[in-house]
């Protein structure tokens, strides 16, 4: 298979404009004759469904939640980047593009990233017009803050609830289209299969989660905007319902899965408190502006923090990275915390935490200033841990937060399966091996509001398709396939809990495919995962019946998919014998212990083709060319 990214020719800055002109159009009166399925109602899905409804397409929009407003984009805190240069501080489309390519450790496609930077400015305008209550200055103009190590202030925000406000903007636009009957909304529906006819994506099979009915929907094109796969690690900052099922099942129907090993681990999360824990909560990385990270110098030092004198503390980030100190990038901060804990210097009951100490900042600035800056975060921390961070240092530990990998797409956001489009976190396209802060919201909305409305028209206008209905044999085959899996899950009747197995998978992934990976640890995971998969299929208990709301059955289906997908993630990590961004191979580091890329051998997108469960997938490579930005070694010393 030859992977064609379909990147338009011409100068980088002109590619998208030229492409927009060259793409074919669907006549306004003909749009209603086309049906488009959109799965997911997060920033990417809701913005896509609303925009296509506005254009006149007949849109069917699905989500697993009880309302489209609950998609996990809602939980994004910090902000959204845009190259508006409102602050007159030297920002530009080119600078945002450059920062994003470099931040992704030179593993993303230049043309896609440039388009993203261009569209960023339109997103802010659109959201303001919808009534998104962005933070403003006293003069009434939009406020910005700096974020994630950028040297300009380009992040727009709505308190600590930017994701919520952007999603509600998209949701309201979507509900307006639902009211006008341009979009039909199907809530509490889980996609269980993709229907491919003559090589084209023509529909989906869903389970109605309230009645258990297996339903079939046919269309002329399918969009998946179903988010990332962070919960493969069991504990993550993702919602407990987030899952890989939709994109994994599309992968099993032929869609290539790109760079699954690119996972982002966020350094400042509240640590695990016990076996019962179901998710981890993020503490915004802005805390590292004023907090100092330390662990005791001695291993196994069980004294409480205030009893450890200054001379016996190791402020390891300040010691190792004097110029960046506590503000090193996410991947570096995470790896160093793990290293300190692995040496036995971790703190708290579990030993899997480091201190984030505000005492110096409180003495320097006063508790009031700290409260004004971080009050809501301190409050949330206290609620969860029952400790007062004004008095004792916070305990933090890294956690899985975002996944850069996803289904492979070309410049038009279409996968290798014609008609199947993939948006937002579910695709692999823009963040390379590491995503910068405040860029996820930007990508989701760029894909949905400003890219897919053009590219899907081009696909529909340039493709001839036979008329198909949901009575076609391919729909029957796929519905039977979904039904078989459900019957199989219910008939195991073992005695092991679904959560127990998921937790076990998470342990394997975190220990052996987590922050620092070696050939040895990855081989170990590749032995353990299939074994656990067998244990699942021989011993899981899934109670209840298939014909009503059965959350155990839903959960079991998602864990079953993770038990297949996790193997691909580990395999991709094993094959990539270099370190880049969030993927750190211990074998590939500089003498100072930093991530060392191997551009000669690994400057490509790894796109995997499914060949059967437990079988070696086939690797396809899309070489990455850097014409504008020249790859360099990142250093923060």
């Amino acid at each position, binding site marked *: 298979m030859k992977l064609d990214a379909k990147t338009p020719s011409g100068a980088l800055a002109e590619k998208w404009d030229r492409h927009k002109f060259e793409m074919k159009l669907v006549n306004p009166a003909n749009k209603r004759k086309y049906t488009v399925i959109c799965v997911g109602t997060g920033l990417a899905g809701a913005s896509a469904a609303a925009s296509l409804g506005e254009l006149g397409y007949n849109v069917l929009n699905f989500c697993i939640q009880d309302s489209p407003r609950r998609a996990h984009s809602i939980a994004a805190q910090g902000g959204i980047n845009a190259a508006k240069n409102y602050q007159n501080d030297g920002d530009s489309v080119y600078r945002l593009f450059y920062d994003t390519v470099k931040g992704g450790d030179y593993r993303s496609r230049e043309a896609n990233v440039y388009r993203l930077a261009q569209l960023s400015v339109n997103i802010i305008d659109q959201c303001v017009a919808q009534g998104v*209550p962005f933070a403003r200055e006293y003069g009434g103009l939009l406020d910005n803050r700096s974020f994630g190590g950028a040297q300009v202030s380009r992040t727009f925000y709505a308190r600590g609830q930017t994701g919520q406000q952007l999603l*509600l903007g998209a949701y309201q636009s979507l509900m307006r289209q639902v009211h006008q009957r341009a979009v039909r909304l199907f*809530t509490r529906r889980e996609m269980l299969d993709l229907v491919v006819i003559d090589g084209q994506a023509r529909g989906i099979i869903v389970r109605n989660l309230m009645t258990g009915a297996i339903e079939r929907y046919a269309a002329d094109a399918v969009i998946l905007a179903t988010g990332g796969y962070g919960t493969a690690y069991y504990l993550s900052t993702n919602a407990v319902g987030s899952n890989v099922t939709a994109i994994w099942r599309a992968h099993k129907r032929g869609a290539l899965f790109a760079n699954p090993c690119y996972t982002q681990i966020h350094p400042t999360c509240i640590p695990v408190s016990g076996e019962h824990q179901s998710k981890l909560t993020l503490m915004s990385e802005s805390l590292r502006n004023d907090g100092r990270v330390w662990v005791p110098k001695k291993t196994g030092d069980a004294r409480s923090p205030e009893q450890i004198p200054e001379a016996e503390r190791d402020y390891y980030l300040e010691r190792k990275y004097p110029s960046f100190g506590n503000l090193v990038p996410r991947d570096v901060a995470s790896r160093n915390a793990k290293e300190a804990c692995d040496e036995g210097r971790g703190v708290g009951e579990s030993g899997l935490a480091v201190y984030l100490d505000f005492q110096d900042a409180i003495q320097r600035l006063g508790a009031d200033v700290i409260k004004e800056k971080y009050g809501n975060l301190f409050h949330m921390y206290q*609620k969860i841990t*029952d400790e007062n961070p004004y008095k004792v240092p916070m305990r933090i530990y890294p956690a899985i937060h975002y996944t850069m990998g996803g289904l492979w797409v070309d410049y038009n956001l279409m996968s290798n399966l014609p008609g199947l489009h993939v948006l937002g976190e579910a695709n692999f396209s823009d963040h390379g091996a590491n995503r910068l802060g405040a860029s996820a919201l930007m990508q989701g909305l760029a894909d949905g509001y400003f890219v897919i409305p053009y590219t899907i028209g081009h696909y529909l206008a340039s493709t001839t398709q036979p008329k198909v209905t949901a009575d076609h044999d391919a729909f029957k085959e796929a519905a039977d396939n979904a039904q078989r899996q459900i019957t199989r899950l219910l008939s195991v009747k073992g005695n092991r809990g679904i959560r127990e197995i998921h937790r076990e998978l998470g342990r394997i992934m975190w220990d052996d495919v987590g922050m620092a990976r070696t050939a040895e640890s990855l081989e170990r995971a590749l032995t353990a995962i299939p074994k656990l998969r067998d244990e699942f299929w021989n011993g899981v208990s899934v109670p209840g019946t298939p014909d009503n709301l059965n959350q155990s059955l839903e959960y079991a289906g998602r864990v079953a998919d993770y038990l297949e997908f996790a193997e691909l993630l580990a395999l991709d990590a094993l094959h990539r014998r270099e370190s880049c961004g969030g993927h750190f191979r211990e074998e590939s580091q500089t003498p100072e212990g930093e991530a060392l890329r191997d551009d000669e051998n690994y400057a490509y997108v790894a796109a995997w083709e499914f060949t059967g469960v437990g079988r070696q997938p086939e690797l396809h490579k899309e070489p990455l060319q850097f014409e504008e930005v020249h790859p360099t070694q990142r250093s923060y010393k």
Partner: protein
Amino acid sequence: MKLKLKIWRQTGPTSAGRLVDYAADHVSPDMSFLEMLDVVNEGLIKQGEDAIAFDSDCREGICGTCSLVVNGIPHGPDRGTTVCQLHMRRFKEGDTVTIEPWRAVAFPVVKDLVVDRSAMDRVIAAGGYVSVNVGGAPDGNAIAIPKEIAETAMDSAACIGCGACVAACKNASAHLFMGAKISHLSLLPQGQAERQRRVVAMIEQADAEGFGSCSNEGECEAVCPKEIPISNIARMTREYMKAMLATR
């Protein structure tokens, strides 16, 4: 610690429900309320018994999915807290905890503790937006909005749409939910063009869904996990009266 639980079980929308006793024997004070239920469910699943159905997703208080009435109070005893953020250290050894679903005509029970809140989506669909298509938006800084107005609009926009206000209200009124959205949009210049249409359409839809009216009890404000003030209802009522005078 050990707790006695009384949990509402109901097999489907049309069947009768009842409170069933369960024991939670290994409760750690660090658990969230929902993690306590996860553990109870894990025990049931291992025995092949039907798990207790309840809704949750983000588990950090922002998605609005979780929806439990704990000892008679939507989202439980802590102020300004969703039930997913309620922790078990709030309870003590031997406590009996009663757990029920949101109860309102407009929120039919789907199963156990899960209810259907799509009525709230239909209220938003009736008018809870600014009618702008993607494409022609002016520059984001074209209209200056005073900081105080933007902040007040944001206070209202913080609503997570969980429906606790409806569950707490003896009239099952959705006025706080609607008032928050109407306030958010009518405070901002972007929302002016449809200001009157919006409030009338949303209230008519809420009536059709079976939500009740407001009798100023303030129960909604007391349970709102985002502490949205009841002044939003007053603002909505003013908007509604103005709209009725102007249009009828």
